């Protein structure tokens, strides 16, 4: 039992904006009152619900490939020393699993969504998620380039496609569906891409990226998954891709959708020399269409490693930069590419990317629909979120940072004209309450009675980045995990999964097709329930 007294509460889920209230915790949840137990005096401090990351890459084959490719970064990064209560590890661009848990919790984040899992290696992803301490987790399974599914779309067999998607989600013990460059990754298996919604897809006759996006969004709504289709749009990263993004948004009218890392999809211009920010066009459309949520995918200057299921884009990035390139195509399901990358303020494209992430966060006016993310580790590492919060809360700091950009870059962006400054209440919305609601996790992102007692307590401080980097206390499930800058406990987290309903006969349809294209036996393919640690099955919803 814990009572937290005297703190200023920022709890957007319950409309509490800086009022001083006591919080009572028992059995890992918020309760109306407790008698006895520990009291934490939070007088003068700021209290947030634990952070929720709607889109990150922390576990599985691709981030583990990135770890293998970047030993030079491990050598220079922060190291975690083994003690009685914690395991050793390394931070940096692609942190090790134990360090991932410590770094997220040390910053006040308590729930993360691993955004890209191939079913074929889902067993591996769950093993890594188990080794990420403290945090609660969910994961999304990659479906938009699954060839068995694409064949069904090509044949117009929608009902069967729906059963197949539901079967795959349960086989992976996953929480929802991620769609990456729909059709484009399938085309990449032949070295091609599909950039526009009406482009043909190599190897198929009738379907287009648009067919796949529309079909999947409908399936996910009809299955009632708590998190809508999580879409990485086609034509990522390319100058002028704003038109692809707007076309995609129009196609999704009447459907729920989460558009991932919007920054990478909001560029104008015709080529790398004429590229400009198109965040205003995207934000204007997005503001008037409430069927969608998004996350920023913001970029910060510095070193990182880019990892994505978008294989063709990574091949282009390798050709542009001449740096290391890793590519891993997964039979029938997806691809994956890895390229280390440095964002520089002297580079025009990088400067525009930096500005676009912030512009979208500032121009999209409903903090319940845009969330803080860097598409970790693509735009920047997650442990740099406090720097972004500082940029959002201080126009003066933004102006200071913009002096580093070249004059040409400053002409191609709208950031200098935006003087909005986020309030603490809005920061609590984009970092916790909003993403929790978008994920359909009602017990997260809230300090209300009955919610999970995940709490961050900050000592008020003028230096915003410092304040958000070093919370005074972090509680996870009612247990004090961080106190005075030290890790006090490392409990194991839960994994949220869903079991959408499907016709069991679908296995008779799938098995022969499966044996044609896969190299593992059908019976061994689904992840067994006992391999998911502390699984919690969430209900599907009525959409």
């Amino acid at each position, binding site marked *: 039992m814990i009572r937290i007294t005297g703190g200023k509460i920022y709890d957007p889920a319950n409309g509490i904006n800086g009022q001083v209230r006591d919080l009572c915790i028992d059995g890992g949840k918020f309760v109306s009152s407790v008698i006895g137990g520990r009291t934490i005096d939070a007088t003068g401090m700021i209290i947030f619900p634990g952070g929720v990351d709607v889109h990150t890459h922390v576990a599985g084959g691709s981030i583990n490939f990135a*770890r293998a490719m970047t030993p030079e970064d491990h*050598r220079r990064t922060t*190291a975690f020393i*083994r003690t009685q209560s914690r*395991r050793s590890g390394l931070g940096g661009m692609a942190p090790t699993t134990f360090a991932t848990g410590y770094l997220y919790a040390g910053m006040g984040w308590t729930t993360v969504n691993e955004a890209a899992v191939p079913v074929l290696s889902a067993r591996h992803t769950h093993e890594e998620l188990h080794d990420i301490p403290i945090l609660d987790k969910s994961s999304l399974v990659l479906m938009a380039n699954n060839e068995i599914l694409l064949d069904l779309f090509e044949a117009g067999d929608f009902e069967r496609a729906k059963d197949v998607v539901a079967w795959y989600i349960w086989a992976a013990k996953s929480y929802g569906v991620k769609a990456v460059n729909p059709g484009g990754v399938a085309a990449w298996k032949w*070295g091609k891409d599909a950039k526009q919604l009406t482009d043909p897809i190599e190897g198929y006759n009738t379907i287009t990226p648009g067919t796949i996006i529309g079909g999947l969004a409908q399936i996910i709504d009809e299955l009632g998954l708590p998190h809508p289709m999580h879409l990485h749009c086609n034509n990522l990263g390319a100058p002028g891709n704003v038109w692809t993004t707007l076309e995609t948004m129009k196609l999704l009218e009447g459907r729920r959708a989460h558009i991932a890392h919007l920054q990478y999809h909001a560029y104008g211009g015709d080529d790398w020399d004429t590229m400009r920010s198109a965040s205003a066009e995207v934000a204007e459309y997005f503001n008037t269409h409430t069927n969608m949520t998004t996350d920023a995918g913001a970029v910060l200057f510095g070193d990182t490693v880019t990892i994505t299921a978008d294989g063709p884009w990574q091949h282009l990035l390798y050709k542009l930069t001449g740096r290391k390139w890793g590519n*891993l*195509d*997964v039979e029938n399901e997806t691809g994956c590419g890895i390229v280390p990358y440095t964002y520089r303020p002297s580079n025009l494209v990088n400067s525009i990317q930096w500005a676009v992430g912030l512009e979208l966060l500032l121009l999209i006016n409903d903090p319940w629909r845009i969330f803080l993310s860097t598409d970790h580790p693509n735009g920047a590492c997650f442990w740099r979120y406090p720097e972004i919060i500082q940029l959002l809360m201080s126009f003066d700091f933004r102006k200071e940072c913009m002096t580093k950009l070249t004059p040409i870059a400053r002409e191609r962006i709208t950031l200098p004209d935006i003087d909005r400054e986020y309030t603490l209440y809005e920061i609590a919305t984009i970092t916790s309450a909003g993403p929790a609601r978008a994920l359909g996790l009602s017990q997260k992102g809230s300090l209300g009675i009955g919610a999970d007692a995940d709490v961050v307590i900050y000592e008020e401080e003028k230096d915003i980045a410092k304040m958000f980097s070093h919370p005074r206390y972090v509680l996870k499930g009612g247990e004090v995990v961080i106190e005075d800058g030290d890790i006090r406990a490392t409990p194991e987290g839960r994994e949220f999964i869903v079991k959408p309903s499907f016709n069991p006969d679908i296995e008779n349809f799938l098995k022969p097709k499966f044996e044609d294209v896969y190299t*593992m036996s059908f019976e061994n393919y689904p992840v067994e329930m006992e391999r998911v640690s502390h699984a919690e099955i969430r209900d599907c919803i009525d959409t």
Partner: protein
Amino acid sequence: MTCTLGEVKNRADFIVYWGGNPAECHPRHFTKYTLMQKSKFLPRGRKDRTMILVDIRETKSGGAADIFLQIRPGKDFEVLTILRAILKGQHVNESSIAETGLTLEQMTDFIDRAKKSRFGCMFFGMGLSMTRGKHMNSAALLTLAAELNAFTKFVAMPMRGHGNVTGADVIMRWQTGFPFGITFNRGYPRYNPGEFSTVDVLVRGDTDAALILGADPGATMPQPAIDHLARIPTIVLDPKVTHTSRLARVHITTSVAGISAPGTAYRMDEIPLPLKPALKSPYPTDEEVVRRINEAVARKSHWMPADGPMTVLQH
């Protein structure tokens, strides 16, 4: 740039084995994954695929190859570099070609076939990665594969063996950031193959105890390393009596993973396969033994700091 084996099965019409002998070392590789399978894109199976074998001598795998390229021992790096030059249309002088044991025609034919293929894959074995040039050879082959992507789809994959070595590699990476050659002697992982690899640590005599799991270094390592294992308290977990278990102070017999112990094995393409035991064993699993050792150690007074700085900057 690599892929899972199913991609090769479904798509690869051009396959190269370099410095390996899969017919004897990976006997199911041809039939399950690379040569014999039919697919939607390769309906005639073997007839739709071309296989080139590159090695320094004829092996049983030669019988399965369409083309055998016999190169001089130790010339892998040179051959790969010349292939890259031909790919980029650069001039290569005749004496450089003559040294390799191949002709310009053979090498030009290799590149022509690779460029014309729809999906190419190079598998490389220890004949490439563990001979003169070592990791430089692997890097040259991977670079050739990357550069071929300017013309067609091309991937490469090492032919790994020795049980679940890939699994150890995968798990060490997620827990420490590094695949092997790791030391924890400062309390956090550091990596330096050649310094912290097991064989180097043993040869220098830097370790005062050893726990050996799933390996038989007594059969494969250089004599000074074996001598050191015999000098120090060595504990071996193994289902069988091995060269290492004979020189160890303690041999704990364990059940056999995949036969009488469950678990996960990672295939050479890093796909995790569940192991479902068919038999029961009177012996404990490796996992159980290590867990019980850990529990016993935890009951002793703790040598590690209870507290202290959460992180350090490395030097």
